[in-house]
């Protein structure tokens, strides 16, 4: 085998390794946020208990309006909430530092207190959240659906289950909806 063949073969192997490592949602301790894809406006996701789903929002700053809706395909009466029982799903919008802390199962914070009300639990059954004006510090943000990530040891019985969630999210600058009323 000649040198040029070795080089070409080596490039192909490196490329294949990169492709494997960047498969979305690959559960590896070292991939962290490298293999996350960007969020879509609306998407159906699968969340596993004691795990989380995350996608990248991107760069946010200033006064923005936020619309977040969860859509349950199973029931029109938001049966989704009841199915969580004592284990609610936390919907988090985290900046990069807090996302890394969350990923490493360390203490994390939220950039805006309003983000805390995004959680789905028994007390908050309205799954359509609309913030006309929310002040967001300039940073890079991630959308996270956390279903007791890292709490497997604390649970009485560690039985995993999965749940399909369909969500719709929109970020716009606060004057956007007035200028584009459609």
């Amino acid at each position, binding site marked *: 085998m*000649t040198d040029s063949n070795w080089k070409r073969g080596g490039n192909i192997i490196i*490329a294949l390794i990169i492709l494997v490592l960047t498969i979305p949602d690959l559960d590896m301790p070292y991939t962290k946020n490298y293999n996350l894809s960007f969020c879509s406006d609306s998407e159906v996701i699968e969340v596993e208990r004691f795990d989380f789903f995350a996608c990248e929002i991107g760069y946010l700053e200033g006064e923005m309006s936020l619309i977040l809706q969860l859509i349950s395909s199973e029931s029109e009466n938001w049966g989704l909430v009841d199915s969580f029982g004592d284990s609610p799903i936390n919907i988090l919008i985290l900046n990069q530092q807090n996302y890394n802390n969350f990923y490493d199962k360390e203490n994390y914070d939220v950039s805006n207190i309003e983000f805390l009300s995004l959680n789905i639990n028994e007390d908050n059954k309205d799954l359509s959240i609309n913030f006309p004006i929310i002040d967001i510090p300039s940073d890079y943000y991630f959308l996270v659906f956390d279903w007791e990530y890292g709490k497997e040891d604390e649970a009485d019985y560690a039985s995993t289950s999965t749940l399909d969630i369909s969500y719709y999210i929109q970020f716009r600058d606060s004057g956007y909806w007035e200028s584009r009323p459609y």
Partner: protein
Amino acid sequence: MLVLLDSANYLLEVYFWLILGSILLVTLTIIFARPAPSQLNDNNEYDLKEGIVTEKASDDHHANTERKEIDDKELNKEEIEEEQEVLIQQAKKQWALAFTIFGLSFMTVGSIVIYFFEYTFTTFFGSCMIYVGVMSIVKGMTLQLSELGLVKKIVPIGIFFLNFGLISLVLYLIEVDIQPWMMMDTGIRSSYLFVIYVLPYLIWTIVPSFNTTKEVKSTYPWASIILKNNLKFILFNFIIISILNLNLISLPFLRQVTKGALEFSIYILMITVLLETVAFIRKPKATSNEIDQTEDLDAKITTDYDRTEEGLAIRDFYEEEENEYFSTEVIEQEEKNDR
């Protein structure tokens, strides 16, 4: 039009495309302003000295005369090379000066426009002028840098960050609200990637760089070249994201662009690795043999040339017998004496 102007969002989109348009305009101006490649090549012929050679009886031995002629030729060659280098250095200085004056003028006018006028368009116009001015000055500076491997590798990285900083400044000055990547459509995403990654590369490659070393045309298949460059691009973005993940420095806009570029390059990687694998499986021997043969041929030509330049006495002296080794030179000497 008035309706468009009333809507800030539409206006911002118009600005964005105006930025692209104006920068491309400047780029095209530079392309057409630079001298044609044929004129650049003519520099080699400017200082070829002409004269009349007259025959003259030699006082010395024939061998000494020949040696003298060889020495003279070598000296002439060196002189021509030195003169060429001097010419290149002069041209470099002239271009560096031109770039600096051009850049400073643009920066000054741009600053004046921003300072005296408060319209959004004038701010945008002035910002673009400052952008072009700074890039021009840096281009002039790089013309004076050496062509060492390390400098060659560092300069593009420096240019990337400079371009990124300037684009961020322009966007800040014209008060463009940067949307999150997830909200952008494909066209806007492509525009951002073009402005951040492709534009500085284009500006740098179209203006003259006066490289004395000739670039050897690669004999690798094009799929292999694209794959290799794509891997470099991925590595570059991966390193930036890794550095930003350390949270030592907060550059969310850079994080957004590099992540977008990384995602885009992964899609390209899927295609290129497929093409390269097919090319590798289909014609691995022929292609690689061609490459190796070319490399061997180049090496052989260089070695033979060097050996001829150095003279026979240096070549393989220890490997052969002295009489046999110098036999060719003795025969040649005798033939010349007979004449």
